[in-house]
């Protein structure tokens, strides 16, 4: 049995004027970390809300842990953990009070499932008498995760848990997710950060309400068939203009400190290109073939 099955879910807002999800289908296997990767406005949050029974889809079918998201609303609400994108705990309650509150409404105690949250909770325990609103971004997310975990959910929904969190905390957060996976909890996590995709077992790339592809991170990279080059020179701005006007260029994106370029013909003469750039006044030209990242795949797939 899959942890989550989504079949052809469609969702619109404003009486059909704004399309949020456009026939989305995928499934999440039991015990895996499934990443929903896409930019803001891709429809990730809508999808989360449909799966957590908060919103009703216009059409399509979805089930979580074998329960229909419409018919079995109550059963689903008992066995899932949900951490919304916006901080949703009581800001004027302390860390401890929040945790106790959520343990109680899930009809359990902090003690009972302490082993699940222990690794995370020890990090915020020194601040347990601090009000949640006064915590730093990373701390807030850790607390929210504790609250979402306190009842040992079967499926965990994390909507952009690392947005607005510093890089160190992000790393820690993902290592916690790996540990939760060991406990047998299935995790659906969304993120706009492509670099986090590699930490998932399976990912779906989503844009404008459409799923572009579903695969393992490696599978997605392997399915990238073209040769990708990273090109640098001392005048990056001019380099973009020159490469985009070069007739052999297929695509050229600025990517950190270099440009990621694909060519119409994979057997492009790099020597010729190098000379051409030199004659345009570029110096310190570096052209290297690289393996694509998830982001390269996303950019290639999106049109």
């Amino acid at each position: 049995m899959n942890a989550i099955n989504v079949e052809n879910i469609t969702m619109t807002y404003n009486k059909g004027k704004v399309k949020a999800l456009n026939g989305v289908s995928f499934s999440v296997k039991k015990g895996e970390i499934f990443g929903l990767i896409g930019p803001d406005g891709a429809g990730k949050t809508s999808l989360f809300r449909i799966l957590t029974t908060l919103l009703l889809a216009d059409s399509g079918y979805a089930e979580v842990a074998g329960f229909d998201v419409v018919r079995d609303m109550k059963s689903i609400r008992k066995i899932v953990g949900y951490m919304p994108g916006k901080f949703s705990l009581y800001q004027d309650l302390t860390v401890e009070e929040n945790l106790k509150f959520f343990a109680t409404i899930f009809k359990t105690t902090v003690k009972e499932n302490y082993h699940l949250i222990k690794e995370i909770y020890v990090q915020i325990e020194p601040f347990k008498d601090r009000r949640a609103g006064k915590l730093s971004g990373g701390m807030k997310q850790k607390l929210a995760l504790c609250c979402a975990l306190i009842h040992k959910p079967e499926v965990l929904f994390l909507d952009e848990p690392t947005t607005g969190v510093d890089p160190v905390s992000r790393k820690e957060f993902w290592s916690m997710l790996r540990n939760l996976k060991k406990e047998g909890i299935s995790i659906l996590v969304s993120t706009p950060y492509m670099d986090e995709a590699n930490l998932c077992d399976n990912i779906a790339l989503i844009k404008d309400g459409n799923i572009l592809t579903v695969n393992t991170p490696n599978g997605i990279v392997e399915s990238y068939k073209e040769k990708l080059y990273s090109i640098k020179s001392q005048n990056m701005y001019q380099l973009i203009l020159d490469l985009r006007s070069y007739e052999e260029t297929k695509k050229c994106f600025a990517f950190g400190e270099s440009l990621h370029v694909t060519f119409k013909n994979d057997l492009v003469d790099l020597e010729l290109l190098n000379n051409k750039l030199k004659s345009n006044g570029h110096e310190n030209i570096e052209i290297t073939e690289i393996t694509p990242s998830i982001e390269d795949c996303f950019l290639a797939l999106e049109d």
Partner: protein
Amino acid sequence: MKEFWIYIVKETLHILRDRKSLGIMLGIPIMQIFLFGFALTTEVKNSQIAILDNSKDLATRTIIEKFEANRYFEVNKSLKSISDIEKAFKSGKIKLAIVFQNNFRDNLLHSNKAQIQLISDASDPNTGTTVVNYATSIINDYQNQLTQQANLPYQIKVENRMLYNPQLLSSYTFVPGVMGMILLLICAMMTSVTIVREKELNTMEVLLVSPFNPYLFIMSKAVPYVVLSLINVTSILYFSKILFDIPINGSLLLIYFESFLFISVAVSFGLMVSNVTSSQQIAMSLSQVGLMMPTLLLSGFLFPRENMPLPMQLISNIVPTTWFIIIIKGIMIKGLGLQMLWKETLIMLLMLVFFLFISFKKFSIRLK
């Protein structure tokens, strides 16, 4: 039960940690009692009057002495001519001018008819009428003295007795009114934002994705406010007794019971508003327009319901405070018991059921 308890604890913490609001909620009743008790009184005390005595005889002097002796009036000045009257009014100090005709006593004794003119400043109509009424009663008093001596053949003697509030103290009427208004203000307005706040701060989103019980959740929101309001009832009663010596002729227990009922009505109204609105601001203004204004204007607190046009009287029937004021006045001033007030009590009970029903019904188990 454990779940219900943790909701109440949480709600109480929200209130206790919002020190400013808490201070306002506990302070307002006391402030209002002071305001209505000392400043906003409808009684007319120490009105300055001017007298134009064209006769200056025994009769007019006796009447003037009566005015001087009365605590509602203070003779400010004697005027010399008719033209002084307007000047006196324009100076703004005079509320009433009394003009005696020439040969007042002679006319009174010989032709049985003498004239006094009362001119009052009616720029505030209530004060104007009240002052004229007081003055008339003083003059009638003098007339009664005369007629008693004269032994007239036919005589109708009117004897007034003002029951329950013989001194016509306005504090008797304002305490029930203030109680009604304050309880409504605090309960309805404060609770009206509580559920919306959970929606606005997103906490509702996590709550919904949990096996929480919406009924317990809604009920628990009411509990701390009910407790807080009962504290307010106590402080209002205490200060009314200490400062204005308002009698509590009926059962104190019944006052608390009826207040509890009224508070519940107000809280459930707040909850209903909270459930049907989407932002704290809308909820606030809705409970303000929906309850505050009708309470002030229609409940009989400031204006007697009997004087309202029929449609307004009908609307005033659906204002909960109307019934609460009738009940509290009945208990405190007339000393009535539940057997006389069961109808009003029943109406409030029905309102409570109605508001709670709508609240439960309108509570959305999904996001909108």
